[in-house]
């Protein structure tokens, strides 16, 4: 005869309570996400209209949009990302292909991790110290440099990770065919790791396009439309910060519209990066 095993009631209750807690915790996280997205969409859509994209930030009480801020953000993020991709890809390549197990390699890897999670406001202070203070003026270039310095460690990290995943035989095959090492890296390794590296760049872009703190005292803000990045440059995050904390209703409406735009852009890029990352490789 067989007896089915059943744990004692107290243990079953403990287990049930625990399972309920795990589900509740997940529910809390999901509720938070939807509460934030709901508020964003509800308040943001109200402030969203064609003017937002065609006019510059207004004085309180008059009509206007976010054109200068959107343009400034795009310019600074793009320039910062370009620099970060250049440095990050090369640094990641060095870590993966050349550093081997050298002590210096370990130091650089650790330093990169520290930079990766250093508070972004400190990056802003650093760029202020080396670019804004000596040049006696806030500028879009300083903002781009700050954003680049935040993005570079992200790209370095992802580049190293994906390059390490490429099989050794791929490198050997290329070298055996007579290609020098640099050509092997450029045309074989980078090419086969393309999707992963692109994901890294997209994630870095998502991260910097919402950054506010380091721009507060590097790019500052500019009320007018300007393509000159050697002057203070308007950007969405700082405009949102100033407008949201202002006492004017029309400014706050614009802040919500801007927040919606930024969140939508960042989340879209994040989702694209995730999809790209999990897309199966062609065989």
């Amino acid at each position, binding site marked *: 005869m067989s007896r089915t095993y059943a744990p004692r009631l107290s*243990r*079953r209750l*403990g*287990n049930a309570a625990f*399972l309920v*807690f*795990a*589900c509740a*915790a*997940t529910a809390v*996280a*999901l509720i*938070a*996400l939807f*509460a*934030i997205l709901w*508020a964003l969409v509800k308040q943001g859509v109200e402030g969203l209209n064609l003017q937002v994209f065609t006019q510059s930030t207004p004085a309180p009480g008059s009509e206007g949009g976010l054109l200068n801020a959107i343009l400034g953000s795009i310019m600074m993020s793009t320039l910062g990302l370009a620099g970060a991709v*250049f*440095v990050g890809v*090369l*640094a990641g*390549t*060095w870590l993966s*292909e050349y*550093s081997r197990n050298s002590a210096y390699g370990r*130091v*650089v890897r650790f*330093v*990169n*991790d*520290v930079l990766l*999670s*250093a*508070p*972004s*406001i400190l*990056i802003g*202070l*650093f760029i*202020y*110290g*080396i670019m804004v203070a000596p040049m006696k003026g806030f500028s879009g270039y300083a903002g781009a440099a700050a954003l680049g*310095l935040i993005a*570079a*460690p992200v790209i370095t990290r992802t580049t190293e990770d994906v390059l390490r995943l490429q099989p050794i035989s791929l490198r050997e095959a290329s070298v055996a065919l007579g290609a*020098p*090492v*640099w*050509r092997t*890296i450029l045309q074989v390794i980078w090419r086969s790791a393309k999707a992963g590296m692109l994901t890294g760049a997209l994630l870095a872009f998502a991260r910097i*396009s919402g950054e506010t*703190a380091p721009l*507060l005292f590097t790019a500052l803000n500019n009320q007018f439309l300007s393509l000159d990045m050697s002057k203070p440059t308007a950007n969405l995050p700082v405009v*949102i910060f100033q407008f*949201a904390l202002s006492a004017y209703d029309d400014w706050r409406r614009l*802040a919500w519209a801007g927040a919606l735009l930024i*969140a939508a852009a960042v*989340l879209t890029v994040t*989702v694209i990066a*995730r999809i790209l990352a999990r897309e199966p490789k062609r065989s």
Partner: protein
Amino acid sequence: MTAAQAIDVAAAPPRPVARGAFLDRAFEWLCFGAASLLLTALAGVVISLAIGGWPALAKFGPTFFVSATWDPVAEVYGAAGAVVGTLVTSALALLIALPLALGVAIFLVELCPTVLRRPIGTAVELLAGIPSIVYGMWGLFVFAPWFAKHVQMPVMMAAPPGTVWEKITTGVPNGAGILTASIILAVMILPFIAATLRELLLTVPAQVRESAYGLGSTTFETIRLVSLPYIRTGAVGAVMLGLGRALGETMAVTFIIGNAHGLPTSIFASGSTIASTIANEFAESTGLHSAALIALGLTLFVITFIVLALARALIGRQTHA
């Protein structure tokens, strides 16, 4: 003819190096330079903060870290208020986020139906992608009023006079304050901790877990007695990573902490953190004021550096073990 050719080929010296090999050194140096640039950047951050903050550190000496007076008019600066504010909000945030993150990770690994695993996992990751300024706006305009009405007011009303309870919940019930900031921080770091814990939980070997189940353990017991001890070191590392994020978070906190100098008096009172103080004041500061702010920044760097170094050491040990 053919014989001669064969001899020619054999006689020709083998090409010693691949074509374009002279660029190899150049490319290696280029990569090396990029890697070293990162090192230089970090050194630059430390040095520029040290130089920039020096006037304040030299003037106030050790009292800078002990005094909680922050008075730009009288030019007297002490970091204690902001440092305590930073540590308290981060610790509270961790206290709230950790159980939730553990719950989410366990849900995703153990309980979630396979169909829902990816969507829910992605949703939690999206929480990590929302820019902090959006958290700030949401916290200030949506969460704070709700929190004031449904949590702060009842809790303050219910507090028996003269007890510790009353003492730690005094303040203006406007929704902004230490606890509100901690809650928003908790939501922000939750996805990071949950993601790391989830990955760690997936490293627990199936045999070990199945043995526990085989001995008659419930899910709760398996996780508590087998999985959690297995991932312990890495889990502490994950917590430290979350803590590192909370310590340096700027914009969301600046929106909702209330920005009052000095030591926080209760969990509902306004306060400030290092990052929020810098964000609020640096652009308009001059002279000693900006030096004091940079010295605050250096303090923040040292605190986060210690936390991160510990986290890396612990997580590294777990994954290499």
